[in-house]
């Protein structure tokens, strides 16, 4: 088994700008007043080590603000770590939120082409998969309607259908399965299971602990930017549940 994702001593610091001069006027005033703006350093991740093996599904759990989404953004390459080393082998599905690139004035069809391109898919591949995406999203009747007339369920279905059509080696999922009705959620989970069977690597962030325990091989518990525990999903979820009691 080779390693698909590895974090070695990874830290990420954010600079929170409380009174950061945003305009030249504020900068000048701040400069004359001897005030360079108050900033606060926030360590979202501190010295994180973990590895995800190829074909493995890793769940990341922890309270809000623990740094779960930051981990996904670092894997996706949206941000760079402040220190430490990250190695990612394989094509990452770079979408962290369903329908992030949707444009409300464009139709479903136009949005499929635009968003597939955002995910790095070539146009002829999109053309070949177009029918499949539309069928999975169950939007045949509405595909030429502008997105602003879609219900939020339709919107999410299109987003998920697109995200799973990309054919990534490494799939990143951030809370996206919590949307849609029961039937569609089941359909999404079934699709994720298919990915697992095909031997793809999945990194999964969720507050739905039962889903994590059920779907993931291993789980990583983050707390205030540090690793609290890593191990078999059942075990880590159990420990986490006991701690919040």
């Amino acid at each position: 088994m080779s390693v698909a994702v590895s974090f070695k001593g990874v830290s990420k610091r954010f600079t929170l700008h409380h009174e950061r001069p945003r305009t030249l006027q504020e900068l000048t005033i701040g400069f004359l007043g001897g005030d360079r703006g108050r900033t606060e350093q926030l360590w979202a991740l501190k010295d994180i080590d973990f590895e995800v093996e190829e074909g493995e599904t890793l769940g990341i759990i922890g309270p809000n603000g623990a740094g779960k989404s930051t981990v996904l953004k670092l894997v996706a390459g949206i941000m760079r770590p402040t220190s430490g080393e990250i190695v990612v082998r394989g094509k990452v599905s770079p979408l962290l939120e369903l329908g992030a690139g949707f444009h409300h004035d464009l139709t479903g069809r136009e949005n499929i082409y635009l968003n597939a391109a955002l995910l790095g898919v070539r146009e002829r591949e999109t053309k070949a998969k177009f029918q499949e995406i539309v069928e999975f999203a169950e939007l045949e009747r509405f595909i030429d309607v502008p997105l602003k007339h879609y219900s939020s369920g339709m919107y999410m279905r299109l987003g998920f259908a697109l995200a799973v059509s990309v054919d990534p080696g490494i799939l990143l999922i951030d809370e996206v399965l919590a949307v849609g009705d029961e039937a569609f959620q089941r359909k999404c989970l079934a699709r994720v299971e298919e990915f697992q069977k095909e031997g793809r690597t999945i990194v999964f962030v969720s507050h739905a602990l039962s889903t994590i325990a059920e779907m993931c091989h291993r789980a990583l518990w983050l707390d205030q930017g540090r690793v609290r525990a890593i191990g078999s999903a059942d075990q880590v979820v159990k420990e986490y549940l006991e701690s919040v009691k």
Partner: protein
Amino acid sequence: MIDRLSELLQYRDLIRQLVIRDLKVRYKNSLFGFLWTLLNPLFMTVVFTIVFTIMLPQSAVPKFPVFLLCALLPWNFFSASVMTSTSTILGNGHLIRKVYFPREVLPLSTVLSNLVNFLLALSMLFLAMLLLRVPFTPWALLLPLIAAVQFLFALGWAFFLSAAAVFYRDVPMIMDVLMLAWFFLTPIFYPMSVLPQAQTLLGVTLNIQRLAYILNPMASLVASYRVVLYYGAPPAWDFFLRTIVTALAFLVLGYLFFVRYSWTFAEEV
């Protein structure tokens, strides 16, 4: 750097899609739609022609609409590229925060969609040339070359400004003022030849005409468009070569600046 450029090539379909999105969204929901690309320069030409041939007849230039459009359309292309680029990163913040893709795609597609508009608007110029019987000469074939140089120049600015606007939000306001000044300093509605060759300023005699050429790459570009289309003559090669060098220098510097700061966009937008 080579990796970065080849990755950009991988995303060429995204660039195309973003250009299409820009053009579609711009004209959807508007009554005349794409016609605005043509109507806007038409109205401007009518206004400028009234001012400079009827209200100020002493400064009249023959076949003024052609004279004006040769310069106004390239100027509009440049000015629109600069102004829209200041918001291209900030306006797509939701994408920057959520999706990985080479950030260069955004300023690049902004300038490209303005280039498309420019090419469409050129049809008004050709129409004016036909109606006013301004002959096309073989020198008009240089038009794509001049447009390419201008595209690179505008792209350099777009890289620089789109990144700078993330850190200083008053970049659009500064550029508003700057572009207005730049418009008047560029020979768009007046010929270069009205500029004095010897003007004494604070005791120093300056060749304003030459200075305008040297200090203002847009003056040289506009003059090149005008000379190949309106005058049907070859461009001033020495100035044109200098403009190519300037455009490339702006492009490289703007790109390096953009690359240096692009990885922090996700945290700043």
